């Protein structure tokens, strides 16, 4: 099966129909089974310290949570309800004003019940990440509710 139409649908639903993603203006850069990449354009609203002009770590976390959830759905290739169990971020360097945030996420282990995901956030260059993160998601096949 060619996964592209599913991923196209996922991308559209994600960026247009998830209220908070839409409010932030998170953009889809790429999506496939192996890896997804998102981009968050800079806004002054993202600052967590107006004096030093650094981006709030919560903005980075929201981008990471979004990217990890999407990476799980992209990997499963079938919409099913998922729930974040935990999320851990390491902030390697401050995220600075005036630059967008990029986030890539990929699943490194998929079991019938749990998916493990890692992600990386950068601004100017992927090899200089501002944050690295790992997360675990629970797959719940019992609910009939829509994923996104």
């Amino acid at each position, binding site marked *: 099966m060619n996964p592209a139409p599913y991923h196209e649908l996922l991308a559209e639903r994600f960026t247009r129909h998830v209220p908070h993603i839409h409010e932030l203006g998170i953009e889809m850069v790429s999506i496939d089974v192996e890896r997804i990449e998102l981009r968050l354009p800079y806004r002054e609203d993202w600052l967590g310290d107006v004096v030093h002009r650094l981006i*709030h770590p*919560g903005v980075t*976390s929201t981008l990471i*949570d979004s990217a990890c959830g999407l990476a799980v759905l992209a990997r499963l290739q079938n919409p099913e309800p998922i729930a974040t169990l935990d999320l851990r971020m390491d902030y390697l360097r401050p995220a600075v004003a005036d630059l967008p945030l990029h986030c890539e996420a990929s699943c490194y282990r998929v079991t019938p019940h749990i998916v493990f995901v890692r992600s990386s956030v950068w601004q100017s260059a992927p090899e200089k990440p501002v944050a690295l993160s790992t997360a675990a998601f629970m797959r719940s096949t019992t609910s009939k*509710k829509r994923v996104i």
Partner: protein
Amino acid sequence: MSNPFQIARNAARQHQDHAPLLALMPYARFLGVRMTERDGKPCSHLPFRPSLVGNRSIPALHGGVTAAFMENAALLHLLLAMDETRVPKSIDFAIDYLKPGRAEDTYADCDLSRAGQRVAHVTVRCWQRTPDQVIAIARGHFLLGATE
């Protein structure tokens, strides 16, 4: 000479006016965070609005919003409890989601588990409706006394 964080902290401590502190953190204002007191401790309050939703079918708060709100609560807690002259830098942050956040107002309070010379450890509890209805717990390390 007072720095902006000291001035804002004094307004919060002496007049329970948290607006100057929140004004230094545009992303906290963007989320709509308010500060209250509960049992003599600072308590962060996130009034619900539809654009904070991450899953419309439940509907549930975006997991990233919960994480960001809790990280912000930890930062505000440090700014109020200590005498930092800038927003402490986040080192790491780990969140465990206990249940989905409903489309309702959300609250968070913090404990300063350890404040060393350089590093503070903060735990955060996030709930809805009543403090025993915990939706997430988190902990983070923050760098203190960072130089300009």
